[in-house]
């Protein structure tokens, strides 16, 4: 029985970790190209989650169109954020710290937009969105939303891997991550690549927003979950998407375990201590890619 409880927690942790991984990779993509912490990613995620919520709740759309709406909204909002908050500073060749400041301001602004439209209360996706609630596998009970998160994350990462490895635009994004100036010297239109990066990051952000909204609940503060992406990308070793994804899943599993064993109040304390120990023991992160340039 004890083993089953453990296994149950592992499944819960993995699905939470999967959503964290989506957030973290979307966040890390922009970091890799522009080298700043894009907290506005949280705002993108929040707006997409609420866009999904509107079509599910008011138009009664079924699950898959709801998720698609969330994903597309993510891409659109991410491009808008780039235009409003980052484009002008980049053209003026502003320092990296200014990007950070505008990105957190953007996060706060988008949060306020949600509060103005929906109020500060908690919402949840309609109960009818999913026909089946749980699956029983022997003694295990797996919530269908958790399974959905896991499966969709795997699909999303496969597509992302294909785009980054095989398509022209993906190779250009990887080149830009390596060296933006050299990429532009090779005759690649860097502005387009940056917009493409924001689109890909926004697609992932939209998906993670809707998934988090479905499996947990919605509140305008949902965007602050971007901090999990930040944690995972620092722990994972900035610069490596694989390391970031692994760190995010580990973070999710740890969180679920700790909340189940010592309660939610002490969890942040233990996470903090583990984080400091990890950073001291392995400063290069999970993936071992060392990165020194950072604002």
């Amino acid at each position, binding site marked *: 029985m004890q083993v089953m409880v453990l296994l149950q927690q592992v499944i819960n942790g993995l699905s939470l970790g999967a959503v964290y991984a989506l957030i973290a990779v979307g966040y890390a993509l922009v970091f890799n190209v522009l080298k700043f912490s894009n907290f506005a990613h949280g705002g993108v995620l929040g707006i997409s989650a609420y866009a999904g919520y509107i079509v599910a709740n008011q138009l009664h759309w079924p699950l898959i169109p709801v998720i698609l709406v969330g994903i597309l909204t993510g891409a659109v909002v991410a491009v808008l954020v780039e235009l409003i908050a980052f484009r002008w500073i980049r053209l003026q060749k502003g320092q990296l*710290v200014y990007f950070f400041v505008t990105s957190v301001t953007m996060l706060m602004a988008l949060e306020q937009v949600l509060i103005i439209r929906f109020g500060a209360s908690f919402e949840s996706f309609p109960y009818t969105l999913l026909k089946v609630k749980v699956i029983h596998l022997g003694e295990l009970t797996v919530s269908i939303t958790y399974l959905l998160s896991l499966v969709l994350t795997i699909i999303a990462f496969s597509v992302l891997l294909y785009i980054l490895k095989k398509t022209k635009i993906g190779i250009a994004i990887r080149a830009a991550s390596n060296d933006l100036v050299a990429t532009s010297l090779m005759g690649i239109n860097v502005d387009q690549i940056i917009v493409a990066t924001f689109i890909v990051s926004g697609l992932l952000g939209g998906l993670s927003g809707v998934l988090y909204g479905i499996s947990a609940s919605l509140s305008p503060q949902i965007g602050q979950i971007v901090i999990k992406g930040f944690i995972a990308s*620092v*722990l994972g070793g900035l610069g490596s998407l694989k390391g970031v994804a692994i760190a995010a899943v580990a973070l999710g599993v740890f969180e679920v375990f700790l909340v189940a064993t010592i309660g939610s109040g002490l969890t*942040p304390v233990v996470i903090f201590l583990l984080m400091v120990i990890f*950073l001291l023991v392995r400063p290069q992160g999970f993936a071992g890619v060392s990165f020194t340039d950072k604002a």
Partner: protein
Amino acid sequence: MSFILTISLSIAAYSIAVLGTFMLTGMNGLFSLGQAAFMGLGAYVSAIMVVNYNLPFALAVLIAILVAMGLAVLVGFATLRIRQDFFALATFGFGQAVTGLMTEMVNVTGGAMGFSNIPRLTTPTLAFTSLAVAIFFVWGFRKSHFGKDSLAIRSNELAAKVEGIDVFKHKLTVFVLSAAFAAYAGVLMAFHTRYVEPAMYGWIASVTWIIIVFFGGRDSLTGTVLGSIILLAAPEALRFTTAWRTLIYCVLILVIINLRPRGLFGTWELSLRPILNLFKPKKHQEVQ
């Protein structure tokens, strides 16, 4: 106490915390997402000392500041040697841990319900004198050799190291100082509003202070002080609902940072020199 005075006291207290962030983030380029947690520590420790243990106010303040400084030494010692983003992450984790503990230790802190019945000991004189002393301190800090070392580290850490600056020790000192500022601001706030709760000290508060520093201009002390007065007063002056005024405030910041990346005041400083120059005897031009 009149409305204006109440607001001014809060602004004075928060400005002290912002001045701490000015030294840490503006001058040294270190991003701490846990500054608000130090403010919370200052508020809680001093309030508990006075209310539960009947300690004199001054002693409680001293203990609160020392606790914050001690924890800053521990956090800084573990993380300032490695990369800057680790420091941001570690301070964030520290902030979460502190607010988590405040919520968890219901017996001592009152948990999420907050801690109330704090006597009102922050007088206008105390708050405004403190702010003036803090401004004077930071002004001296910027003029000093130590402050110039900070700017050197910010612009090029390797070059600063080569020049013989002990970068680690320097950063640690500044971090501990800024934690003391935040803790003292927390004390002033706790004994002004007479109520504290863990939710006031999350990472978003720390980020707000960083935004204020950049809004006013990280190279201008005048800009930081005026920026914090403007931005902290703005939510009160813009008489809309809270959400609308925060949105307007965000848009204002976006516009300023986009149009004037160095902040509203750039490198401009308020100075007495133009006034003093009026009294100087004019140099007579040489007549050929």
